[in-house]
């Protein structure tokens, strides 16, 4: 059993607070991704769990053991580094065997586990080579093999794919996912690549400025971002945020975007009532809007500014007063710049955001359960 618990972790660099009172609970054998832009504290948090940088406050528990002040070697963890950190003066075999040898494992065990790890990563024919002449992808494999050979209960990965070129990254991503699925380790994986996060993690912790903004499974993080930042950080193009004014009209609520009136879904009526007369953000993803060629009563007429054919979709750029809206359409939908199209906003796909706090406006819990 190796669940990882981080409690009230604070890490400062001078005046800069890299990790700001973070709480994180990772279940045994779970795959958690720490996602965020550079400088958000994700790597710092990972290193604190690894024992490579001591926390200023708070504590770290691994499998019910307080490891806050333990050196890395006593934490029973293993790690894949961003630049691989393959020892250039050792053969591939000795690199993979390093952790086992340090733990003084018996020779047969070392041999067996090195061979197994090498086989899993398809590098069994490179064991006698030095890493100097190897390609980035091969080194990556050695780094992963070294990390899994020790069979520790916790596996930490610090942007392991970020130094590979795009094609190789795609290949390694799938391979890594299937490999890690077979392992029994609790894994924490740091990345700034949202696609990696969405495609690999059981749960994603989105971080910004030293704090975890949302910690949830990939679908929910994508569809129901907790706030404006998560919505715009995840997804390409980012979630659209239109300015709308809430208006109460005899028992119902409408949101006015220009001259257009939008009706929220049923469970949102109550929470939105409090915003009567105020401006809020209407958050909606580019692929969640319907684009029509001809007018419809519940569709907004807009002028297309730019059309970008992307192969699998066409991306339209539309200006609504001051806001820019990105809409993705089926590639067969023929439209040119400066033409008028009609857009329908399915109420169920809209995420409403408070304009001042940037936080999502959510229905009260009992309403959802009902």
């Amino acid at each position, binding site marked *: 059993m190796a669940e990882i618990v981080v409690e009230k972790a604070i890490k400062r*660099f*001078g005046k800069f607070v890299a990790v700001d009172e973070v709480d994180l609970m990772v279940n045994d054998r779970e795959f958690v991704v720490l996602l965020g832009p550079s400088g958000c504290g994700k790597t710092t948090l990972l290193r604190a769990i690894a024992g490579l*940088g*001591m926390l200023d406050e708070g504590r770290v528990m691994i499998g019910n053991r307080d490891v806050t002040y333990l050196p890395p070697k006593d934490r029973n963890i293993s790690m894949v580094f961003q630049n691989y950190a393959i020892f250039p003066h050792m053969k591939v075999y000795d690199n993979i065997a390093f952790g086992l040898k340090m733990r003084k494992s018996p020779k047969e065990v070392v041999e067996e586990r090195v061979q197994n790890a090498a086989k899993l990563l398809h590098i069994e024919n490179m064991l006698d080579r030095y890493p100097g002449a190897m390609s980035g992808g091969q080194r990556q494999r050695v780094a992963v093999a070294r990390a899994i050979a020790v069979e520790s209960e916790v596996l930490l990965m610090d942007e392991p794919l970020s130094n590979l070129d795009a094609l190789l990254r795609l290949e390694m991503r799938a391979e890594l996912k299937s490999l890690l699925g077979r392992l029994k380790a609790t894994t924490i994986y740091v990345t700034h690549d949202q696609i990696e996060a969405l495609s690999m993690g059981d749960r994603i912790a989105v971080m910004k400025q030293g704090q975890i903004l949302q910690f949830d499974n990939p679908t929910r993080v994508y569809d129901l971002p907790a706030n404006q930042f998560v919505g715009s950080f995840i997804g390409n193009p980012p979630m659209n945020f239109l300015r709308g004014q809430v208006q109460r009209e005899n028992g119902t609520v409408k949101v006015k975007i220009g001259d257009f009136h939008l009706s929220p879904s049923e469970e949102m009526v109550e929470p939105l009532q409090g915003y009567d007369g105020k401006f809020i953000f209407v958050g909606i993803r580019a692929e969640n809007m319907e684009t029509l060629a001809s007018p419809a009563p519940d569709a907004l007429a807009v002028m297309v500014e730019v059309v970008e054919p992307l192969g699998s979709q066409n991306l339209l750029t539309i200006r609504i007063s001051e806001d820019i809206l990105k809409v993705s359409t089926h590639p067969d939908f023929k439209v040119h710049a400066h033409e008028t199209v009609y857009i329908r906003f399915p109420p169920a796909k809209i995420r409403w955001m408070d304009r001042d706090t940037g936080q999502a406006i959510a229905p009260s819990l009992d309403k959802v359960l009902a």
Partner: protein
Amino acid sequence: MKKFSWTPYLLLLPSLLYLVIFFAYPMYESFRLAFQKDSAILSLRDEPDENAELGGQIKLQTIVTILDRLQLEETLPNGRTRPIFWFQVEGEDIDGNMVTGWVNQKSVFIENRRTSETARVVAGEPTKEWTTDFAERMFNDYRFKRALITTLILIVLILPLQFTLAIIMGLIIQSRIRGSNIFLYIYAIPLGISDLASGILWYSIFTQRGFLNSFLDTVGLIDKPYIFIQASNREWMIAAIVLAEVWRATSIVMVIVVSGLQAISRDYMEAGEVFGATLWQRIHYIILPLLKPSLQVALILRTILAFQVFAVVVAITGGDVLTVLANETYRWYDPARYNNANVAAVYALFIMVLSLGISLFYLRAVRSQEEASKSV
């Protein structure tokens, strides 16, 4: 950042201690040698013992008569003992009165410790007093001005040549022609060559029966060897020293320049080319400004070293007809010549003050320039 840790300090401690012992202490000693001298007055003692009560005071060089003598033992710092004589003497004190008291053999000059009847007071109190005597002696020495001027002339001639050549070498290496690595190593060869060896090398070229004369003779330009190195030929001697120093010490500037050039992104150069800058314009407007920090470091380093130029000068000229500051330091120190460490210490300090002054001047000039460019 890690929590405060003593580890780095512990790791640095041995080196720092060592440097303090071998830099700070000699500096302090240097000042003492340069600006302190023995007191000019010797106090007599009431008993033949260093800790005895003090009696009358006698000026240095006073002749005293010996009334009595005693042979005692003295313990040295290393634990060994050696015999030491104490004399009871009589002489005129600073006010002209006759006084008597005991002195030991270190304070007086005496022909024969066992039989002589008189002695001369040569050492004063073990206490020191401040003096500018040694400094005055250095400044008034007829060779001081010549040494200073020669040193400055050498610096003024050597540094511009060195830096021009080093930048040319650097640009050649950086042009990435085939074999530029080989050129780099050839240009770097003099890095490990001592100033003495370089001096001897160039002496072999400039000496009367040397290679230069042999060459001129073979080509038919001269009939008999021309004597480049002689007292009336200062210009040629200086030229030989300049060539030897440029030959030897340009390499280090070159390496600094090349590593500075490597830090300059090729984009700048290519941008310059695209916008039509000629090579000279690129050097003037792109390379030199970007290289400035490296050049400053090299300049300070080379200037400080140039103030210490020594073995090259001695090897080429013998160090008598043409002299430099470091050579004077050695001459004053040398037990076989002036044997005066005090004046030597003044010379050493003088060289240090010059070096520090020049470095500060460079740094100040650089800073004021930077501030000027910032305010624009």
